[in-house]
């Protein structure tokens, strides 16, 4: 699995927020992008997620091999739903319990198929889905809160619930917008281990983060910085 953004340009009301941004990643890589407030980090993630259209440039995914040294993907195609975004502020469904929220993240075709939903669902399938959801909630220590609604949880708990909702569908590309913001030490460690697990499973993770300490904790060699709408490798000089 390969993922790339080619020559992305985005302007808002005449202000160029992103200038010719290109990046690519392959299975199991974590890309960490830092930048100041208003530098265009979130805009870039929204474009990568397909929620905002770039003025020029394109976002591509591919399952075909990438030639060494090439930034262009062979046989590439547009986004196919393999990409999921963790919003900066958790956007759980307020009328669904935490368990239902995570279950909504599973790739279950019945979520969209009314006729098949009316028919009896095989018990094994139902219990399999429940088991998966419970396992995910266990990882973030939310099992005891599975029947609560999002507004009954703290911000950090909602963020962790959002992460497992996202990972429930085993997406090939995970985009995370300031995932560590407002998380305490334990929650941040849980999130770091979830990302490491996701990386081992071969998924690509691209995250933008204001706090460089969290980026260092991820131990990824692929660190970037966005400055004045341009993306560049994060050097020691860039940290000052």
């Amino acid at each position: 699995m390969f993922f790339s953004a080619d020559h992305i340009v985005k302007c808002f009301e005449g202000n160029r927020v992103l200038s010719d941004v290109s990046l690519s990643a392959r299975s199991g890589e974590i890309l960490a992008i830092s930048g100041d407030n208003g530098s265009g980090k979130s805009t870039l993630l929204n474009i990568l997620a397909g929620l905002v259209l770039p003025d020029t440039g394109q976002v591509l995914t591919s399952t075909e091999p990438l030639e060494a040294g090439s930034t262009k993907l062979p046989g590439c195609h547009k986004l196919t739903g393999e990409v999921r975004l963790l919003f900066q502020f958790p956007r759980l469904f307020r009328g669904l319990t935490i368990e239902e929220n995570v279950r909504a993240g599973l790739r279950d075709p019945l979520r969209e198929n009314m006729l098949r939903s009316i028919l009896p669902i095989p018990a094994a399938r139902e219990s399999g889905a429940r088991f998966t959801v419970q396992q995910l909630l266990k990882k973030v220590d939310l099992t005891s809160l599975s029947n609560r609604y999002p507004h009954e949880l703290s911000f950090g708990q909602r963020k962790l619930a959002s992460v497992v909702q996202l990972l429930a569908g085993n997406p090939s590309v995970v985009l995370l917008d300031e995932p560590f913001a407002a998380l305490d030490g334990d929650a941040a460690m849980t999130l770091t281990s979830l990302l490491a697990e996701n990386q081992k499973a071969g998924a690509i993770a691209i995250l933008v983060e204001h706090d460089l300490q969290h980026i260092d904790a991820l131990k990824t060699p692929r660190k970037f910085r966005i400055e004045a709408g341009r993306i560049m490798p994060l050097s020691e000089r860039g940290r000052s």
Partner: protein
Amino acid sequence: MDYVLHLAALISLYGILALSLDLMLGLGGMMNLATAAYIGFGSYTYALATTRFMAPPLVAAAISIIATSAIACALSILLTKCSRETFVLATISIQMIFYSAVYNLEATNGSNGISGIPPLAIGSITTMSPVSFTSLCAFCLCLMFGLRHKLASSPFSLGLRALRDDDVAAANLLIRSNRVQPAVTALAAGAGSMVGILIAASSGYIDPTSFVLSESLFVLSCVALGGFESGAGAVVGTLILVILPDCLSLLSVDSNAIFHVRQCLSGILLLSVLRFRPAGLLGSTRGLE
């Protein structure tokens, strides 16, 4: 006895409509004010198929339900990208267009309506007999209640409720509004059409005045009173709003004023519930902040 049967049939028919609207609004967040248009489309399709094209009543009923569902589904696909406000306005427009069309078209006999509509008969059950008709209506209500209950606890309802709460977050999880919303709209329209067929087949006559916006608003009131996202709530809301005004008949209210007194009382009741219990009498409040 006939009065009680009439009341029971009325509750069943409005109950079906309230349950179908609850599927759209309570679970799906789609404020649909074209319920009367669905009923009317079902009625007119059945009436025209049986009187003009001499189709057997059961065949006409099947055609009517399929046609209403298909048209509602197609319209819903066109409206999936609309904002909620636009959706409400669009459904009011559909309602208005339907009323104007049947009122003015020669094919629907304009304001004179269509008479001589044959009854619907399934074995020994016929819409001509008050007992059979009420039983059929009650059976359809139970069927709709069961269907709503099954859907509300299915994975499909997760998709429906997710889209209701946050369509962008739902799209991020690959829950597509153009798959989910048209399906539930088609089901609600089919239920509306079924009610329309039962009305046409039992009375033998229909005219445009039965399918006006105030009917859609009445169904909405039933759901709002009983409680959103609650099947029992939809039925209880209907029960109260259908029976309560009829209790006035027992009081010595001037017969000319009775209609207006009913409207006022229903309005006051609805406003009181919305003020003191916004989720409705039996609606769930757990997900509300």
